[in-house]
């Protein structure tokens, strides 16, 4: 095989991957979203019936007509957005500290950041239930030292969902940010100091702007899965925590309305495409 052909073959791999595992499933989801529910297996009508195209936009009409769905989208974006902001605030100092740590210790610190991944997310969120519930570890400690009389309601709140998301997705914030900060020439910050900038000014005018692409990349990696997150709101959330992932789940499994949940999914993807494109644009301007 020639070098050029080898190169082409290699470059084709991600495209084949995306085609098989992203575009094809997406096409199936779109197809289902244009169908109607039916009793049977699968529980929706065929797109082409006896040679005639049978597509309907009724599901999309339902999605937009029912304010419940719109509310679920808005609340998902809000909670995921808040979690993303908190993840930036928590992740930036971590990434900065690791990037400034002695080189021989960085590997260990990065390992510690990714260590939670060695256990299943489900198990770890269950562990948080044990920590947060009324008779749980945190309440017990607070009660025993006399800080509180009655248990704090921490579990089944939107705050708990937000906290759980920050906990679960923090590594996705830290790693790209670390990669960016680690590549930053230390002479740039030294030069800023030499030119009269206090350390804080040097951070604000040199380190922070130059690390923004890392912040953006990390924010996307946290925000996108958080919007559609199901496990965390289901386990830590309360009755008033409405997120689109939970809605999807109940439409799919409880109502067995595959076409409607497919339409909800397609709309969610459209909602997510906007921030991705916005970030891609800012990253594209980078030197």
């Amino acid at each position, binding site marked *: 095989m020639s070098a050029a052909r080898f190169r082409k073959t290699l470059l084709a791999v991600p495209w084949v991957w995306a085609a098989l595992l992203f575009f094809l499933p997406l096409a199936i989801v779109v197809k289902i979203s244009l169908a109607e529910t039916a009793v049977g297996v699968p529980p929706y009508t065929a797109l082409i019936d006896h040679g005639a195209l049978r597509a309907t936009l009724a599901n999309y009409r339902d999605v937009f007509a029912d304010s419940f769905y719109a509310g679920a989208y808005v609340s998902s974006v809000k909670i995921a957005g808040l979690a993303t902001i908190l993840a930036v605030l928590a992740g930036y100092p971590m990434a900065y500290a690791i990037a400034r740590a002695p080189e021989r210790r960085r590997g260990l610190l990065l390992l510690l950041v990714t260590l939670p991944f060695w256990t299943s997310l489900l198990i770890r969120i269950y562990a948080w239930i044990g920590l947060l519930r009324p008779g749980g570890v945190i309440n017990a400690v607070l009660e025993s030292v006399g800080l509180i009389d009655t248990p704090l309601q921490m579990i089944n709140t939107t705050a708990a969902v937000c906290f759980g998301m920050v906990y679960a997705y923090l590594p996705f914030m830290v790693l790209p940010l670390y990669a960016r900060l680690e590549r930053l020439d230390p*002479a740039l910050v*030294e*030069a800023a*100091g*030499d030119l*009269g900038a206090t*350390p804080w000014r040097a951070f604000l005018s040199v380190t922070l702007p*130059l690390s923004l692409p890392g912040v953006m990349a990390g924010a996307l990696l946290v925000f996108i899965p958080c919007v559609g997150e199901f496990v965390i709101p289901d386990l830590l959330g309360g009755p008033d925590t409405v997120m689109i992932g939970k809605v999807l789940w109940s439409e799919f499994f409880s109502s067995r309305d595959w076409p409607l949940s497919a339409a909800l999914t397609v709309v969610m993807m459209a909602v997510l495409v906007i921030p991705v494109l916005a970030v891609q644009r800012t990253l594209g301007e980078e030197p």
Partner: protein
Amino acid sequence: MPAVIRIEGLTKRFGDVIALDAVSLDVAENEFLALLGPSGCGKTTLLRAIAGLETPDAGQILIDAVNQNGRAPYQRPVNMMFQSYALFPHMTVADNVAFGLRQDGLKGAALTDRVREALARVEMEALGTRKPQQLSGGQKQRVALARCLAKRPRALLLDEPLAALDKHLRERTQLELMTLREKLGIAFIVVTHDQDEAMGMATRVAVMDRGRILQTGAPRDLYDRPLNRAVAGFFGHMNIWDGAVTGTDSVACAAGTVRVADPLPREGAMVAVAVRPEQITLRGPENDVGSNQITGVIAEVVYGGTVSTYFVRHGEHRLRVVRQNGAGAAFRRGDTVTASWPAAAVRVLAP
């Protein structure tokens, strides 16, 4: 000339490595000082310590008689041009130059005037709106220079300022730096590992090795009168023989008897004698064995345009001789020649 920078007993350790070993040095207000030495000799650490980027373990740095210990880089009236130039990639050329001035609270017309003035000084005023990555290496160097000069520092610190430039640009920039310093009348301290660069630019050179200053002086003095082997070897080439003093003006060594014009230690003392390659003359072989001459066979001739370097084998030694091309008879590889040098050309070094 008053000292703008005074360094007293400066010591800096990195773990077990002593980067600076009780270095003392005065820098005059109006001089172009080169810190010259091999990599790891401590020259960059010394420069960074003056800028405040390294904290010394002992000793002090005074700038205009004010002790700088405990003062951060942003509080010191000196500016440094980094080897990588360290231009801020997210700012335009003009914003890079304005950065330091903004820290001093300059705004509006006063700010733009100073930026324009600094860029004009390095002939870069037309490129103020460019980003650093749109500049050539030489242009980046000029912007970095302008960014420092805009601050009107008491002294300019330059870390290997010519290392990233190609040969032609290096010579031109060297001349420009010299002119610029004369115009500004402030001290330039330049770190370099290149002896030609140091000799060409500086009014004074401090040769460093292993955290110590071995010798300071005008380039000519260092070249003509090195105090020890390290300076002699680092600053150009020298033919060096170990020997013993045999009289008030003679040393016995592998080159026979060498007569010396410089004062010598007492008889029997061990010394090294050294002669610059260009101080040696070659002629046809002679049989009489006099002092300050040896006879040998030319082992190698390296042609170098205006001059050629000859290596004359004599016993175990290879004598290095530099001769003007076209002056006198040409010698070839394999010729037997007699090389001689005057007593005044012989330097006495510590053994």
